[in-house]
């Protein structure tokens, strides 16, 4: 059973669209509903912002759509948009849990977890929700790890929307010493370095759950190409 985990789209606030290769990949039959007959559930971690278009896109991917509120979502608008699409008036929760076979999967945007992104805090949430897999977002960085017997998944941002968090620190940097003394003109090289170190790689995840095992496929979009990584988790 395939479940899509996707989030932090920030359309249109910080991004114009998800990469078209992702679109094609996710929605092989864009004119039918569901537009992807392999994915049985879609989990969206919020921060859709006001884009009705992308909401519709995600909603139509599969027969089952789960949405939690993201930090920048306007729940009022979002819930009405969803109502117009789905004809179901349901409030948009901050977290939710679904069960696949032996696996309980919880998901939340994570902006109300303090400290945000802290593994112990996340573990605490997982414990509270009593889930085996916790999917969270808000950091725009794709990651997956097992901690204390639970599986933690962050699908990153599907659009590669920028964040205002601290850039990832790269230890190997800044050894070269250039004596470029131009002051007011822009050093393009430095500019590019900065942009690169701050760049967010678009990504999403697919969870293939079976029994007590979840195989996670991590899709990233780098240099115009889509890359897939695989991680497997089995509940003890």
């Amino acid at each position: 059973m395939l479940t899509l985990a996707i989030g932090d789209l920030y359309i249109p606030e910080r991004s114009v669209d998800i990469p078209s290769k992702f679109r094609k990949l996710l929605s092989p039959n864009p004119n039918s509903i569901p537009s992807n007959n392999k994915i049985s559930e879609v989990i969206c971690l919020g921060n859709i912002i006001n884009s009705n278009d992308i909401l519709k896109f995600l909603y139509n991917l599969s027969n089952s759509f789960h949405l939690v509120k993201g930090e920048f979502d306007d729940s009022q608008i979002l819930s009405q948009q969803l109502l117009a699409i789905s004809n179901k008036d349901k409030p948009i929760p901050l977290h939710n849990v679904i069960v696949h076979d032996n696996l309980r999967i919880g998901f939340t945007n994570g902006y109300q977890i303090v400290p945000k992104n802290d593994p112990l805090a996340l573990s605490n949430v997982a414990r509270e929700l009593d889930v085996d897999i916790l999917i969270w977002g808000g950091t725009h960085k794709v990651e997956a790890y097992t901690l204390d017997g639970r599986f933690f998944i962050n699908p990153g941002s599907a659009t590669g929307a920028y964040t205002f968090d601290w850039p990832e620190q790269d230890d190997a940097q800044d050894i070269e010493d250039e004596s470029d003394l131009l002051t007011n003109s822009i050093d393009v090289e430095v500019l590019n370095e900065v942009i690169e170190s701050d760049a967010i790689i678009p990504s999403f995840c697919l969870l293939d759950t079976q029994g007590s095992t979840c195989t996670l496929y991590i899709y990233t979009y780098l240099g115009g190409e889509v890359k897939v990584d695989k991680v497997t988790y089995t509940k003890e």
Partner: protein
Amino acid sequence: MTLPSISEQKAILQGCLNNINHQSNLMKQCLNENNLLQGLKHCSNFLNELRTNQLSPKQYYEMYILIFDSLESLSNHLLTSHNSKVQKLKKRQQQQQQKEPGSVNTSFDNTTSPFLSDLYELVQYSGNIIPRLYMMIVIGTTYMATSEAPTKEIMKDMIEMCHGVQHPIRGLFLRYYLSQRTKHLLPFSNSIDFNETIEFLIANFIEMNKLWVRLQHQGHSSERELRYRERKELKILVGSNLVRLSQIIDDYKGNKDENYSSIVFYKTKIFPTITEQIIQCRDHLAQSYLIDVLIQIFPDDFHFATLENLLNNVFINLHPLLKKSELISTLIDRFITYNKFQSDLATEVDEKLAVTDDIKESKETQSHEQVEGEAEHFNVDVDELFTIFWNFYLRLYESDPELPMEEHSTILQFYIKLSLVYDPKNFRNLDTIYKFATENLITSDKESSDNEELWLQLLVVPIRYFKSVKDLFNLPFFHEFYLKLTNKSYQKQISLEIINKFLGISTNDELLDISPPTTDEFEYEYLTTTDEIDGIFKYLLVLIKDSQQQQLNTAKNLGIIKTIKVNNGDNGLITQEFLDIQEKFCKIIHLIENPVDPFKNLSNLMYARRKYLNKNSQNIIYTYPTLINKILYKLKIIGYMSLKLKKRNPKVDYSNQDLLITTNFKNVSIIIDELYQHHQQYSSDLILKLYLNAATIADQLKQESLAYELFNQCFIVYEENLILSSHQYNYYHHINPHDSLGGGSLPYQSILLIGNKLINSRYFNKENYESLITKLTLYGSKLLKKQDQCRSVYYCAHLWWWCENLLPPGEKSPTVNEVKAEEVSEAKTEKQPEEKVETSEDKTDEAQNADKQDDAEPEEDVDVEAGEEVEEDEESLYRDDKRVLECLQKALRVADSCMDPYLSLKLFIEILNRCLIFNVYGNALIDSRYINGLIDLITTNIDNLKTDDNEAAFNIDINDAANNGVEEDTDKEAKLFRQSRNLFDRTLSYIRDQQINENRFEGIIV
């Protein structure tokens, strides 16, 4: 002439067909018996059926087909008997020659041909003209098929005699028969023959057209419609002549005449005659059909050569009611296809050459020449072409003031297409069109505004076709024309088209039947200068300024457009359409981009805001966040760049850039403030988030005073609007207070948001940092609901206990540095603002501590172990174990003070879990003793509740069905209680696990 009823007609037709079949069979029988004369008699009999007056053209055609086949068999018979006669003669001749080798035989020619030529004369005794002419044609053409026939004389005679049939339908079919029969027999082996053949075809065409036109005027005037339909059915008979003409021209290769050129021939000979006929007939249907055929049938080169004439001498003189636009469209479509075909050809050639290039690079130059040679072939001068078309249009415009606007619009649309396809970069021609349209076609009176829909297409086509929206910048009159549209909704449509194009949203609509050069992947174009911003935004202004309101009203009236409530519905209604447009705006803002010059980029963004985006407060709320985030992001890039440069070149003075960054931060805060002014009441949470982002960036860029000020702004927003959020944001109010992640009130959420940002700030000095976090904790402790108070306080505890470094390698946080420096000397002075919190806490704290801090001894051991782990980091991390403990104590007190024992219990468990985190992170004060105390407390509480629970259950049993409400209530409580106990169990088992697997939590008794 009134036709019989339909059923009668059918019967008549059937009768005719039967008779034809019958006579035709008799004829074949006679032919088999070599009784030619009798056979011809039967032939004449069935041909007589063609004299009927009572059938519709379609039925007549049915008959014609049958007769055609019968006549073919006659023709075949004649041809075979002719050939056998020739054979016999030849034989006899040979024999004669053998007998008398000397004598030259002269009778050969005389004796062969007469057979058919006699027949040709014989059938002319036939008293009725229709059978006579059909027989003449079948025999004449059979004769033509033999080698010794006087072909051209026969041709001339047949076509001349056909004049006798003046009845339109019968005449058309007769002449069609003539043309069908002669199809492959027309001579064109030399230029004389060729010319005569052409004359023959043209003559037949002219006569057929006359008959066809005349058909319209047959019968009663009430049957005009019927006639028109009948004529339409017959048009192909007339058109076939032109088809044949075109084929002949194509087949004739000039025959050694080097000066012959088919184009010239067409231009001087065929075109004038045919078009004159078309003009002369003054018939609507004929003109529209024949011009169409003319355009379709003859090669494009011909049309290029005669274009001027075709337009100015032919089109102008056609029937005034005939839609010139249709002709123009056919012609231009033709040219467009031609162009496409030629360029496809060229690319094919290119590809082929590319392959060969790879193999033989040395021949590169040569093959390039070849490509150019190929390219030349379709080198049509667009300007010249366009000028011809344009002059025609001007003439049309002057000569026919009554020309409907649809015509103008369609013609100009096709001109635009033509220009686009032939040279998308030729803006002069396009602008000519827009200039003319602006000055002459569009006026502000009522009538013209009704026509505006027509003009829409003129504007839409180039937008869709252009490879780049920026091409529009080259068309000054495009905008003029656009401005002349008085109906705003049309302007909006155009504007939306521009946006869509810009964003690569494909509008798959059949309107654009010319497809622009396709690109696989859409690439966004950036607006890098203010000129470009102006160029695009001048079209968007109508969407900004003239948004929403009246649209919404009409929608309300009609009840069509779905609306979305905002601001909890307090006078807030917007449409999804409006949101969609806003979304597109935001995307456009993203395209104001300059990847190589972020400074310029920033000033452009500011420019766009000042000049366009701030024009309507309705829009501000949806577009500003994007703008602000974009500016912030750019600032972040600039800042990091500047930091990096400073680090690399410490001696250089970068104060200039620093100043720029400071200024821009101030600008950002002005913009946020503007948003705040307009939308304070309903959107303060959004504004808070924006301020937080700004503050975060300021901190990362070591702009401490800015960051401090921005956090203060956050507090102002909080205090002014969020602290009492009674009027808004009740979206999550129904959430269960037991749910720690469920939401809570808006102020609670705001505190979490601020807290999370503060935790990650690294460049405050200690004093400022502590002042900020203390203030936040204080806000948290003053929240309305106990659970919110409790949770925000225990979350705030994290503010005193950093877990991550976050800084780049080699950087030290000033917050920590000061801890080192000041801890010894100035610790006392710092305490002042915090004491307020502490004092209020301490009172209840002591009561609690008495219970829990019984065994504080093992604390030391844990501390050492944990300390070692984090030793390296500790230096750069701000940590204050006491304050953490204080916060947790405060949280415990609040939890304890809850009226709801189940909620208390839940909160205790949450605090326990929180303590575990701090324990792992090495807070020496949150030791096993402390945690054991907490576990005890929870266990006691559970025990207490258990009895209550049992009692409650017992009570329910007694009351049974009487008290359903209570039952549900207690049921719910039981459920919550069970959930809490489960969570507690999970927590304990987690502790056990950690003790076993990770060597943590030593001393904690589970």
